[in-house]
């Protein structure tokens, strides 16, 4: 005999389909993303993302700029982690030109990349709970991010758009370093001490977030089991970075295809197996701690030395094609550079992370509840400048 609780009552509720428009201006879209969603009651039947509101045509603009000028453009692709965008581009140009970069410059690039990662993840840590309805973490986390941005600003002069790497090295502000003439163009005095203090603060805010957000029952109910992306789908749609690692794929370019001096550093690649919004959140939180550890190691290991290699005044890259990539806060960021021997690239393909991460939207959103749409969108951590390029 069937137990009472197992008797299913089937009542088909007839609900007319409805098309709703979300965005382009909407708090949960991180910029100007528009979604045209067909709803069947509370469920999304299908969704058509509309992008391009911020398309600036960087690939075309790069064809009329010299290699040195393009770094100013690539800063502005993903402005939440501006410095990290410069790294793969400059590595590509240096590979074309065959320039050996001084070791100290490579370590400085590494430290700033990790600072960019922390600041990008802290933006996620503050905005994601806000989208789920928790306002307190925003204040705490953005305050800590300001300390990180101050570090970046003290070295590069810019909080968001450092434009700090040069072909052949890095170029701190004149007078930023200690007062002796020889070192006047080095890191500012007290930078390492200040960085170590800030890293302690960063660890502290991660602990605070544990009690505020990570273990919060409401957050867990809103995110656990929601928006599950299996590993094979993540790979098919080109997801990288924390979004891919949250689906159980142990893939991090810093370890698997080392660039800069990451091969000398001991760090863990954070993964989770569940592939849901909660996993994507937790992976980022743990990555902040890992980045803080990487920076501490780097400060221990950074050698003294010059910051710039000897570079010709006019950069003419030999003909060839090169693809360089880096593990940016949001995932694999790459540039495909085609040189025909001139001062400007013949073609520059920008493989921006958020663009690829968003291509999964038409697959992941159908069948989800409307309130979960915000949770899923936020968990993918995209920046529209990075989508539209």
């Amino acid at each position, binding site marked *: 005999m069937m137990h009472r609780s197992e008797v299913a009552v089937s009542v088909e509720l007839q609900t007319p389909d409805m098309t709703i428009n979300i965005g382009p201006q909407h708090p949960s879209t991180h910029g100007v993303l528009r979604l045209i969603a067909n709803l069947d009651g509370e469920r999304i039947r299908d969704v058509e993302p509309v992008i391009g509101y911020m398309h600036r045509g960087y690939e075309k603009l790069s064809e009329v700029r010299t290699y040195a000028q393009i770094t100013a453009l690539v800063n502005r692709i993903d402005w939440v982690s501006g410095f990290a965008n410069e790294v793969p581009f400059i590595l590509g140009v240096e590979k074309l030109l065959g320039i050996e970069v001084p070791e100290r410059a490579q370590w400085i690039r590494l430290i700033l990349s990790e600072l960019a990662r922390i600041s990008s993840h802290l933006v996620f840590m503050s905005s994601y709970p806000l989208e789920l309805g928790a306002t307190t973490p925003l204040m705490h986390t953005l305050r800590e991010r300001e300390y990180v941005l101050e570090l970046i600003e003290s070295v590069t002069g810019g909080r968001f758009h450092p434009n700090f790497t040069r072909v052949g090295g890095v170029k701190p502000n004149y007078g930023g370093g200690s007062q002796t003439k020889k070192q006047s163009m080095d890191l500012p005095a007290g930078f390492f001490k200040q960085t170590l203090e800030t890293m302690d603060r960063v660890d502290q805010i991660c602990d605070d977030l544990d009690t505020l957000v990570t273990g919060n029952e409401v957050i867990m109910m809103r995110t656990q089991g929601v928006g599950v992306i299996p590993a094979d789908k993540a790979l098919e749609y080109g997801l990288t970075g924390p979004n891919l690692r949250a689906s159980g*794929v142990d893939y991090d370019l810093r370890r698997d295809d080392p660039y800069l001096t990451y091969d000398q550093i001991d760090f863990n690649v954070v993964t989770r197996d569940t592939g849901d919004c909660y996993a994507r959140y937790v992976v980022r939180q743990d990555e902040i701690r890992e980045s803080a550890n990487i920076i501490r190691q780097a400060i221990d290991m950074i050698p003294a030395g010059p910051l710039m290699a000897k570079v010709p005044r006019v950069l003419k890259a030999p003909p060839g094609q090169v693809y360089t990539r880096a593990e940016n806060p949001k995932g694999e960021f790459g540039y495909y550079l085609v040189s025909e021997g001139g001062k400007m690239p013949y073609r520059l393909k920008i493989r921006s992370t958020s663009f690829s991460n968003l291509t999964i939207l038409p697959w992941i959103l159908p069948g989800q509840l409307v309130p979960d749409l915000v949770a899923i969108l936020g968990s993918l951590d995209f920046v529209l400048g990075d989508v539209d390029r």
Partner: protein
Amino acid sequence: MTDQPTTAEADESTELSALEQYASDLTDRLGATGYDVEFDTVRVFVELDKWVETIVAAREDLELFSWLSAIDWSKTTEVGEGVADPDSLVERFEVLCRLSSVREHNADAAIFVAVLDRSEPSIASLTEFIGGAAWHEREAHEMFGIDFVGNDNLIPLYLPDAFVGNPLLKSYPLIAREVKPWPGDVDVEPMPEPDQEPAADGGAS
């Protein structure tokens, strides 16, 4: 194929580097027409009518679909510097698709290249097997005018609906440059020699 640009021939007399060996093995396994390794970047040339089956076969161990895009190889250009040697260039489109391996913690990756006729560029769509290719193909369609047969949603991705033209073609002018030329050449100021005193800001200390 005769319009293949630079296909490295496996030369028995010279030792292949590890990367070249990898590219050579991959080319043999997939039945591709050739390969090219420069600046640590592996390119594998694929016949146009075997595009989809080659990519699908390659994804067995290169699981991650990274990106898809195109290059317009044109003798004349409205923007930038153009090709080094226009006389010997075979005008064509190249469609590129990059896959990389994620499972073995190695850096295996390859860019697959198909050569398209410039007058009527058309290639089979990957969307049936790789959902993530849909947006990349839409972008290549609007930027280069390449038709992806089988992708039934080739509506503009970035550009407004009423936009005319394919902006990433070399024949497409950059209007901003027409109005006001960029002084890209003249702003390369001579740097002071390393042994010289920095002239402008040297007096600060």
